Structures are given as structure tokens and as C-alpha cells.
């Protein structure tokens, strides 16, 4: 007999928030699976461009990373750079899980931090 599981923790943790970036409402969703992180940041109501970033196996003390666009815009290098920065930050924080990053942005220009 099928039954719903109540009182048991859902195995995938997630967090979602909404922020305003240069006048655009931006929905951000973070999901933690056993073997991946999923991050969605969208201003357009859809996942947009999806990238896959992972740390490569190696013996060097300096880790290398592989970033690829699996869906969407392949001619926006800043999206790849964004995924590259995130995966490196994650690696430096001690996580070796790959990242699936979905960016649905209205403006791809770089904003200089004040």
C-alpha cells in the first residue's frame, strides 16, 4: 500500500530567495543533492542557460575545473566565467560536488563592485 511519508526529512535540502538586482526581480534557488548542487538564478521566469561545472580529478595541488554549457547560450563567456568562479569557491570551501547552474538573466554585463 502506498503511503506518504510524514515526519521524515526530505533528502534534498533547498533554499529559495528573491532579490532585486538593478530593478529586476531575481529568483534564486539552491538545491543540495547527494552528488550535485543545483543553483537557479532567473529574472525571466525560466531556467535560461544551464551550465555544468565540476572539479577535475588530478594529483596537482592546484585543482582544475571543467565548465560547459549544456543548454542555451554558448556565446556568452561571462556565464561560463560565473560558473567557473562558483565552482572554485565551492571547492575552496571544501566541497567537491559538481555544480549545475541555471542562469536566466536579462543583462549579461559585468557590474563592478563599489
Amino acid at each position, binding site marked *: 500500500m502506498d503511503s506518504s511519508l510524514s515526519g521524515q*526529512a526530505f533528502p*534534498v535540502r533547498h533554499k529559495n530567495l528573491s532579490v532585486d538586482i538593478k530593478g529586476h526581480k531575481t529568483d534564486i534557488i539552491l538545491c543540495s*543533492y547527494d552528488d550535485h548542487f543545483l543553483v537557479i538564478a532567473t529574472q525571466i521566469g525560466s531556467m535560461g542557460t544551464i551550465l555544468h561545472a565540476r572539479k577535475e580529478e588530478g594529483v596537482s595541488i592546484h585543482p582544475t575545473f571543467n565548465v560547459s554549457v549544456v543548454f542555451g547560450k554558448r556565446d556568452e563567456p561571462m556565464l561560463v566565467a560565473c560558473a567557473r568562479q562558483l565552482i572554485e569557491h565551492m571547492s575552496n570551501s571544501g566541497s567537491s560536488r559538481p555544480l549545475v547552474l541555471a542562469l536566466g538573466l536579462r543583462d549579461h554585463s559585468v557590474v563592478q563592485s563599489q
Partner: protein
Amino acid sequence: METGGGGLNAAAAAIGMESIPDGLRIAEEETPSTGSSQSQINHNNNRVCGYIDCGVHITCFSEVSDNGTLHFQIIRLHKQIYAWIGCNSAKFGHLYAAAPTRPNNTVSVTSLLGGASDNTGSGIARRLALKTGLNADAEKKLVQKLINLGYTRPKSDGTSP
């Protein structure tokens, strides 16, 4: 649902869809969400809002079936739905995208991460995009939940597309 050494224990599908009509009421439902904090500037929690244009809706639930414990996660964006299914697993699995395509809205499916075009996950993604389903247990439960949440188009004359 495939299990075992060569089978698929988890599948994720991003499903494109038309914009959901404004004003469509969704049954309010509180979803269990543990381990997630709610620190937000604009509060979006796991509770399904009463009307469509409330932003992102996340629905998570688990069910015990003959194949084991099935975990479902549905993320509804304004113009797209992301669905994840885990069978006794919280691994991400393979990722597929499916959407109606021109010229006659035939649903096309593609594998984005892992997987192939002819296995369980891609089939589920395609049928979810078509909003019909087979009798597979996990897919059936997911489709039923999508119907309950109001994310599917109403049936026309009962014939499958």
C-alpha cells in the same frame, strides 16, 4: 522505474511550457521542507500560493511504493517546470529538457547531462511535456501531483495528443 547497477535511480527533467493563465487557483498545500532556512528579502516559501503569479513555487514530497521510496521535487517557474525524481536516492541523476517545438507543437526531448534519448528519464520528460502519462508508478504520482497543483492543461476530448 529502473533500479539496479545499470539502472537510473534518479532523474531530473526541465520541462518547458506555456505561461500559466493568470488567476488560476491552486489548492493551497504545505510541503515538507527540512534543512532549509528561509532568510529572504521577499519571502517565498514552500507553501503553494493561492494564485499563479506568486513567483517560484517549490513542492517536495515522498511516497512509499513497491519499488521503494520515491522522492519528488517540483520547482515551478513562471514559464517552466523543473521536476526531479529520486528512487531510494537523493542523487541528481540525468537531466533532460522537453518542450513543444515548431511547426506543430510536437514535443521534443534532449538529454542534457548523462542519459540517452531512449531510456526512462527521457520518456518521462517527454510525456510530462505532453501532459499524459503511462502507468509507471513514479511518473503516475508525479503527474497526479502536477494535476493537483494545477500545473497541467485540462484534458480536451480525452484523446491523447
